[in-house]
């Protein structure tokens, strides 16, 4: 998915305005002219200028407002793409409750199978990688990976 330069520029101008507005709430200190809002405001102005340049360029070039690549029209490829952020969201929402080992196993197995790995390969690799990752991070490096349902076993 690709936005036209003009649309992208307009969004950036809006964003820069929003940042500028937010800096209005930063405190001022008497006798100190250069406070916490100075630098962000310079950057907001810079982003706004880039936005203006993109709007001008986009209007000059006159392309379509949004152009879609071929893969977005193909449902299988679109799903392949969405599965990655989906998998991360699954981890974010379920790992605390399920625990690391079940979450990681389900995550890997689903992705392997969707990407057409044979189940004979997918099952042992998903199990092996999950345990390896758990051993490396929770065992060796003492990262507090969530235990969830597995709490009583570990």
């Amino acid at each position, binding site marked *: 998915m690709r936005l036209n330069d003009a649309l992208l520029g307009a969004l950036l101008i809006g964003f820069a305005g929003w*940042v500028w507005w937010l800096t209005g709430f930063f405190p001022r200190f008497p006798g100190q002219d250069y406070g*916490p809002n*100075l630098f962000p405001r310079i950057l907001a102005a810079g*982003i706004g200028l880039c936005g203006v340049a993109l709007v001008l360029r986009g209007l000059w070039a006159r392309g379509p407002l949004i152009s879609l690549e071929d893969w977005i029209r193909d449902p299988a490829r679109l799903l392949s*793409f969405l599965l990655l952020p989906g998998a991360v969201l699954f981890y974010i929402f379920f790992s605390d409750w399920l625990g690391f080992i079940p979450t990681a196993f389900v995550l890997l197995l689903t992705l392997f199978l969707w990407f*057409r*790995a044979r189940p004979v390969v997918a099952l042992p690799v998903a199990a092996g990688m999950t345990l390896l990752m758990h051993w490396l991070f929770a065992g060796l*490096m003492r990262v507090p990976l969530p235990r969830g349902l597995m709490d009583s076993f570990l």
Partner: protein
Amino acid sequence: MEPLIQAFGLVFDPFVLAVIAVSALFGMFVGAMPGLTATMATALLVPVTFFMPPVPALGAIVTATAMAIFAGDIPAAMLRMPGTPASAAYTDESYAMTQKGQLNLNMGVNLVFSVAGGLIGVAVLIAAAPVLAEFALNFSSFEYFWLACLGLTCAVFLTNADPVKGFLSLFIGLLLATIGIDPSAGFPRFTFGEVELMQGVNFIATMIGMFAVSELLRGVTSLRDTGQVIVQQVGNMFRGLGDVARRYWFNFLRGSAIGTVIGALPGAGADIAAWISYAVSKRFSKEPEKFGTGHVEGIVDSTSANNSALGSAWIPALVFGIPGDSITAIVIGVLYMKGMNPGPTVFTENPQLIYAVFLIFILANLIMLPLGWAAIKSARQVLRTPRNILLPVILLFCIVGSFAMTNSLYGVAIMLVMGLFGWFLESHGIPVAPLILGLVLGEMLEQTFVQNMIKTDGNLIAFFSRPIAGALGIATVLIWAIMILRVLRPTRGGILRA
């Protein structure tokens, strides 16, 4: 002398050597797999090295990146797919050599000149860094302000032909760096009441998102229909190398010199070095018509250049805390995490650590010869690693790595947001590297800027009053002027189109 002996003790320790060996294998693998970059290797290594003392942590990064930049040449020659962007400049040339039946010679040239170029970059790092550090001890906030400006400007100037999008990326990076407690007044900016945002956007989770997750997103749409790869077996790769070395020794020196200079420039790294040295090689060649037909000359130049850039990129990183490329941007993050704030004082306070980095660099380049040989010999097997297994495993590694950086789901969320954002930027032709440099240098730039404004009472002319600061400032302003001209006359291409 004593710090050097200490450094030997630090490096030749069984644990450190084991870490170096494992990271070498890891770097070779990541570099050889198309779609996985050296920067990604570094970003994925950081969560693991986070729990190590500084020397093995830095050793892992140095070794893995040196191997990855070389290993990127292997699939370039065999599959016409660069393993890392640093090999992209001469991928077609390498592949044309393979089609002419010169794969053996091509692999030999890539391996030997990568090692030799890498050693030249290291030699310059060893010679230049301590001298510059002594010089930099006298720098004030004016010099650091202009150095940061110059570094960030170079990042935009050298990486992209479109300055508007480059600057946009830079400004967004600098703005991201302002999130959290502000350095001068201690006021929490843009945190929206979130406690986790008070300490700023987690840098490593951001890097994992921008360099690993966004790369996975790009590769994943074609994952279900990738076929089997067929790769030739490599024979004796050292036959005929002597002739190449005798004929093209000057190309090797020129490539290494260009690589070293580009690497040391803040903001540009191995990939730009390879493009520029390839273009230079073609322009000054006696036989420019042979370029593109499988001619070894340009490969000698550029394969030496990308490895030499790797070492010299550490010069500005160690001496000024200004990254030479996106890999050293991560290194700077690691140095801060280890309490070794980069800057000239590191050379006086912790010289043994600096010497240890130098030693690891030499070691990494030396073991590249046997390991690279083994990697080329086993490329048939390695390149057959199924990507439908590899990509999900990398995704899980990204998740766990980001989690480990904050010990909370906040790291994972940052990684996801930054991964999608990085993918969005790249699909709009907006480069990610300036954003990352902005994120690393944002605090330094703002702090020195505000300090200077207070010192000079807002008089911008006074920013140029010290001699070195003035020279750096004028150089920066000149580059700005060139870029503004380029925007106004966009038909003229950048260096990379030469």
